[in-house]
């Protein structure tokens, strides 16, 4: 028995490790982009995002100002601070520390911070906090020596990418457009589908089975088929490429899933409740509004989440049914058509744009996961 128990626990460890590995593999790409969205383009090209939590060493070059030399012990002395007053002060974030320095470009880090280097005519000392002292037996005559140093830059994160994409690159407008497309396109199909689902679940009439089969069939019709004929139709009736057009399109495309999910759920409602209501003289309309609709809330929520995610994330329908200008572009189109082209190498900006576009779906996802899972199950596993 003991050996079996030992084997069990080893297996449990294997399970823990493989799940942890899988989770890490699945998370890493997203985390990488998230971290990068808070870094400047310089930082991104200098070090990988996986190093961003650690200080980065960077080499600098400076010339010590020659004015203000003092005399002490028969030598001329220049002193000051490289980090706060030097030429590189702008690039050096507060918290940067000098690790090493040197007097020639060949060996920029020949001496550790705090050590004293011998120069041709004297000495040079640079401390970690940037304070330096250069001595020389002859006057500097207004021109200080060159100094090279390696500084440890503390991890630094910035919101500048987000500011840039939201206010200068038009993602703010695109965000509003996405919201404008998504909300009506999520709400409108629900009622239409709910009534149809009720009829398909609880009313007896010839052709019901055929209609259900048709809905199941339409579930998988490729959207690509609908694009050209419907755009043509929209143009003929005067809607053209507009918000109204895309609302209608998303409503139509969302209906099969809505009807299917809601019907599957409604069929499972207890028969007694509905029949006793009928016996009490309730009409179908009353039964639907007062009993079935409130009871179907979980299924309605599931569909609403599906449709919300689908419309929010959609690129195809938005590309075809909305005009391609900055006033109406949604975020997916903005990223795919504008930013990836014009800012193809600017990873900070791209990453920030991507996170602006996926923040809301991720929020909805984590807040409403229960309903999402329930909806998935109702849609694919009978009785699951």
């Amino acid at each position, binding site marked *: 028995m003991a050996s079996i128990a030992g084997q069990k626990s080893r297996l449990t460890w294997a399970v823990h490790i493989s799940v942890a590995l899988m989770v890490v593999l699945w998370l890493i790409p997203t985390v990488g982009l998230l971290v990068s969205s808070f870094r400047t383009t310089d930082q991104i090209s200098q070090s990988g995002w996986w190093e961003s939590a650690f200080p980065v060493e960077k080499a600098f070059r400076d010339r010590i100002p020659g004015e203000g030399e003092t005399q002490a012990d028969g030598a001329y002395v220049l002193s000051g601070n490289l980090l706060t007053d030097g030429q590189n002060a702008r690039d050096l974030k507060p918290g940067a520390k000098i690790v090493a320095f040197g007097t020639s470009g060949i060996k920029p880090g020949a001496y550790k911070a705090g050590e004293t280097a011998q120069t041709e005519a004297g000495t040079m000392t640079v401390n970690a906090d940037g304070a330096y002292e250069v001595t020389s037996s002859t006057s500097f005559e207004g021109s200080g020596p060159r100094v090279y140093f390696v500084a440890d830059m503390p991890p630094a994160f910035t919101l500048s990418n987000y500011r840039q994409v939201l206010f200068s690159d038009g993602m703010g407008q695109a965000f509003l457009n996405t919201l404008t497309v998504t909300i009506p396109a999520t709400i409108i199909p629900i009622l239409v589908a709910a009534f149809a689902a009720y009829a398909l679940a609880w009313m007896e009439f010839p052709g019901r089975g055929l209609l259900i089969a048709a809905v199941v069939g339409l579930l*998988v019709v490729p959207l690509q088929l*609908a694009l050209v004929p419907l755009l043509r139709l929209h143009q003929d009736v005067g809607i053209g490429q507009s918000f109204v057009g895309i609302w209608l399109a998303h409503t139509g495309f969302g209906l099969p899933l809505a009807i299917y999910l809601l019907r599957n759920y409604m069929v499972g409602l207890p028969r007694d409740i509905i029949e006793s209501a009928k016996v009490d003289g309730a009409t179908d309309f009353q039964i639907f509004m007062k009993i079935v609709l409130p009871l179907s809330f979980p299924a309605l929520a599931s569909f609403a989440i599906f449709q919300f995610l689908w419309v929010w994330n959609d690129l195809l329908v938005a590309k075809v049914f909305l005009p391609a200008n900055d006033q109406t572009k949604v975020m997916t189109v903005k990223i795919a058509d504008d930013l990836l082209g014009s800012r193809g190498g600017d990873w900070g900006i791209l990453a920030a744009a991507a996170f602006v576009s996926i923040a809301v779906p991720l929020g909805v996802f984590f807040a409403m996961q229960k309903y999402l899972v329930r909806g998935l199950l109702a849609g*694919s596993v009978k009785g699951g």
Partner: protein
Amino acid sequence: MSPILQGIITIALGVGGCIAYFYASNLVLDKVIFPPRGADPGRNINRANMVRPWLFLFPAIAALGLYLAYPVVGSFWRSLFNRNGTEFIGLGNYQKLAADDTFRQAVFNNFLWVLVVPALATFFGLMAAQLTDRIKWGNIAKSLIFMPMAISFVGASLIWKFVYANNPQIGLINAIRDAFHLQPLDPLQIPFWNNFFLMVILIWIQTGFAMVILSAALRGIPEETVEAAVLDGANPFQLFFKIKVPQIMPTIVVVWTTITILVLKVFDIVYATTGGNFGTQILPSYMMSYMFRDDGRATAVAFVIMIIVLPVMIWNIIQARKEMR
């Protein structure tokens, strides 16, 4: 009018209009057309009840018919005309497709996608479902693996483009190659294999979907079968592959086909990463490259996709009808 205001009005009109339609049409049916009075009230009630389902169904049927059923016919009809729709050319667009190397490549690549993506997504999903069911923090793990479902295909493409970037300071793949002192390369430009790097993106997204559904199916397996197998001395692997997997086979098939359909529709990934260059074209992105330029050719491609989807559609309908009985 600002689009936001327009949106609010549309919501009000849509929802209000819906309720008004259903309420009014039921009222008219019960009070005006077949009122339950007169010579034979019972017959009128029956008649009203025969009409009522169609009142409930009408808006949905109209929308489905217009937005999904009509386009199947409309697209096919359009695909028989030339690029501006002025001249009937029969199957000319399809002949042009057959002669086009890019189209043949798109078909071949799509075939690879259909072969690889559903298989791997289902496999990883099944593994994740089985493994997470056995541990305490399984639900957290599940929700993290499931998370890419919420990310748009465009967002996911960007996330992975970053992983594949050919600067070893940016792209993780090249950072790893760099650690082994290998030259950096752009995974999205390696002929043939770049297709698989793109598939990774969709597998990454769809594994969570497969996992959630298969996990529910695994939990639905009757305890007795598992217990009996344990008593008979089955080891964990036998238990999984010989007892559990055969019992959830129908669900595996559903997951597999659902992802297959998706693969045939997703154009976003190829569009946002390679734009169909470097031999990565697939049918949906090939179609988009003709959209707005040559509608005849675009609809012909769409119809080809429809024909490929058709067997799955028929199979789904057969399954649905079986379940209803």
